[in-house]
């Protein structure tokens, strides 16, 4: 993978291009971010997503929403998955952004429900669903991915 201008590179965080989305020429801009599946990676991963969105001219609201979505979904991977890496794909497809967060093997379905008020857990998917237009589980090459669509 190659470094993305303005984003950190090296062993801790790798940002590159080349995720095969199978959507051909509709894809305008894409990156892949890979980092250790550790909570210390959350801020750099958000930063890489933010840098790419800003460089592509995405509106501030879209930037904030996708930063929040990737933070929630990457946190879920860290907490519930045995994977060594967080892998995030981000691409612009036509007028929409598509955010893929890999390593969602622990999820059987996406059915976010707001937990009762005093409940401590269970809000990550609720938040990710609220700030994106569509959230789905897809299986690619034997790997389960949470895919978010966000207009903008």
């Amino acid at each position, binding site marked *: 993978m190659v470094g993305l201008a*303005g984003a950190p590179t090296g062993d801790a965080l790798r940002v590159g291009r080349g995720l095969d989305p199978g959507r051909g020429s509709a894809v305008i801009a894409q990156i892949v971010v890979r980092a250790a599946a550790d909570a210390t990676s959350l801020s750099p991963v958000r930063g890489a997503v933010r840098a790419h969105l800003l460089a592509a001219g995405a509106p501030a609201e879209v930037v904030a929403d996708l930063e929040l979505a990737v933070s*929630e979904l990457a946190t879920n991977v860290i907490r519930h998955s045995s994977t060594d890496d967080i892998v995030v794909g981000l691409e612009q497809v036509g007028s929409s952004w598509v955010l893929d967060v890999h390593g969602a093997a622990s999820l059987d379905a996406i059915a976010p429900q707001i937990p009762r*008020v*005093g409940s*401590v857990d269970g809000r990550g998917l609720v938040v990710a669903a609220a700030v994106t237009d569509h959230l789905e589980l897809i299986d690619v090459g034997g790997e389960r991915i949470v895919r978010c669509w966000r207009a903008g």
Partner: protein
Amino acid sequence: MADESDVLEVTRAEDGTIVVTGDVDAHSVVDLSREIDRRPGAVILDLGGVGFIDSSGIRVLVETHSRCRDVGNEFRIVAVSAPVRRLFEITGLTGYLLGEVDESN
């Protein structure tokens, strides 16, 4: 990429208010929890300088609110930034955490 404004800073004002600035996520929220736990009693939080927060921060706030209520200690949030308010609204916790009617739910 994180810049200096992203880094979580948790300080205690003279009146005991815990002042939080920067980003709150599953990694940084540990610092907030530590400061809350450092001094028993009322928990007064100023979240006006929080630039980013996700549900990991909500988790700690709900836990702290619940713990304070159980032992009769005051829990109060005296300021929130736009990202904090928005997350409270998304999660339906505006009324619970701020004592305000949540009109979004």
